[in-house]
């Protein structure tokens, strides 16, 4: 029978490993949005001395390829140091699963990206990130904002041009956003942006100016 999915993908899809959430995680990341059709949230517990991943869990709103990839990469990452876990690429995950249909690549890449973002979140929170990567600069703010998805169209808020201006002054980041203040997603946007920027060194406050 010519199912587009390998036996292993189906097995992981049907009985995904490490599913759920971790209360008080050491790090956490979400990628994607319901509009893209796929969304993954990943939680990490990391041993502060050895930097080994002691627990890892994920949640998925997505198709079989997305769920199976989440399952396999959490299996692969568990017990590894964060440096080793960073080396888990999409190709390795896909090989481990016996291949994925080309049309489903983006759904599984999303799961791998979420692991990378969660590790980055850990590094930034625990003084392991390069200082220049988390310095409060316009460049870093914009890099972080690329991970915030505009719920109106499923694309990141920089790509859509929703971010009209960014300015930084004594620890306060001001962002001009092309969205009405009364828009149903306005609060959600504020929360998402604040969370995306929280690890930047010396950030005190995020101010969103809603335009229109």
């Amino acid at each position, binding site marked *: 029978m010519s199912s587009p999915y390998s036996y292993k993908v*189906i097995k992981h899809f049907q009985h995904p490993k490490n599913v759920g959430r971790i209360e008080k995680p050491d790090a956490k990341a979400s990628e994607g949005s319901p509009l893209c059709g796929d*969304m993954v949230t990943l939680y990490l517990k990391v041993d502060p001395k050895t930097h080994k991943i002691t627990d890892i869990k994920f949640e998925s709103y997505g*198709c079989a390829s997305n769920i199976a990839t989440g399952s396999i990469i959490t299996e692969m990452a568990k017990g590894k140091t964060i440096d080793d876990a960073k080396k888990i690429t999409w190709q390795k995950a896909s090989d481990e699963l016996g291949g994925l249909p080309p049309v489903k690549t983006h759904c599984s890449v999303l799961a791998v990206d979420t692991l990378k973002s969660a590790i980055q979140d850990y590094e930034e929170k625990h003084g392991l990130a390069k200082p220049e990567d988390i310095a409060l600069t316009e460049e870093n703010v914009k890099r972080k904002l690329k991970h915030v998805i505009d719920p109106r169209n499923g694309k990141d808020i920089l790509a859509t041009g929703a971010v009209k201006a960014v300015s930084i002054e004594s620890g306060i980041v001001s962002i001009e956003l092309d969205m009405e203040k009364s828009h149903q997603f306005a609060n959600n946007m504020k929360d998402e942006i604040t969370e995306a920027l929280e690890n930047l060194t010396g950030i005190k406050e995020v101010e969103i100016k809603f335009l229109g």
Partner: protein
Amino acid sequence: MKRYYFDNAATTKMDNDVLEAMLPYFGDKYAVATSIFSYTPGLEARDAIEKARKVIADKINAKADEIIFTSGGTESNNTAVLGIARKNGEKKKHIITTEIEHISVSRALEDLKDEGFEIEKISPDSEGIINPEKLRKLIRDDTLMVIVQHANDEIGTLQDIGKIGKICSEKKVFLHVDACQSFTRIPIDVEKMHATSMSFSAHKIHGPKGVGALYLRKGTKIKKIMNGGFNEFDMRPGTENIAGIIGFAKAVQIAKDEDCKKMKELRDYMIERITKEIPHTKINGPLGNMRLCNNVNISFHYVEGESIVLRLDMKGICASTGSACFSRSLEMSPVMKAIGCDHELAHGSMRFTLSKFTTKEEIDYAVDNLKEIVADLRKISPLGK
């Protein structure tokens, strides 16, 4: 594994009586009528086709010579849409249609747009219903034709073709109706509906695949979309698919109103069970008499449709979803978009379509499993917590 088939809007199981009727035409009755002055086996073939033509015509209150056999719904839609526009559209370039047509209509219209026609699409309301008065206001002096699907294949919405047809006939514009989903499930009368042309498909009604029909009102001129012999009143060249045509007629003959009544009851039973027993759902399309008797379409918040389809398949249940992940184009269903469904609801939409063979036990089995699967997938979803 026992299979529980809930994708009857895609295709249906061929009835055994239909198969029986077709079999001789795969065997001894292989001759075709190459001429009206043909030899005896050829004339017998001609008679068989004409009898079948009369069966289809009678079912929709048409005359036999208004029925053209085709390869199916797609060809019928293409023949009518392209054929009528190309033959009659020299001065009138305006065509009105809806946002929820079958892809064989919408893509044919893209071709016409390239050929200089202006295509105007009416949006339906949130249940998929087209307001006939809204349509009336759009008709202009240069409007050539109106194209409306009788029953929508995804959400089961029925249109008031009688009213739309009356407007079209008053305004003297052609009306093409895609009736592939509604045929034999709702009474069709081409006179009362004032249709210029109408498409039908055999395999949607327990007939064979690869055969359909186009009703074309007498006197309507079209430009053929294929060239060849003089078959089918010189409207559709190519050797007739005799076995298919015979099977199609048989399927129409054995279709019963009671089947539709039974499907309607089972449809409502299924909708009621799902919406009562599974939280956070939304029904797509209308309830009651404006809904096709065999269509159930429900969105499940916080979960993705392809995952549901796969998990159902593991239990032997065949169903469909409007999720982009499932579609060949990776695009959200235009029908879902047109009725104002957001991406999340489209991704989580599931379509179950019944047939005369569907039983209450099968529905119970499907709903029991669906309940478990949706709950399971919600457990692993980051949304809705």
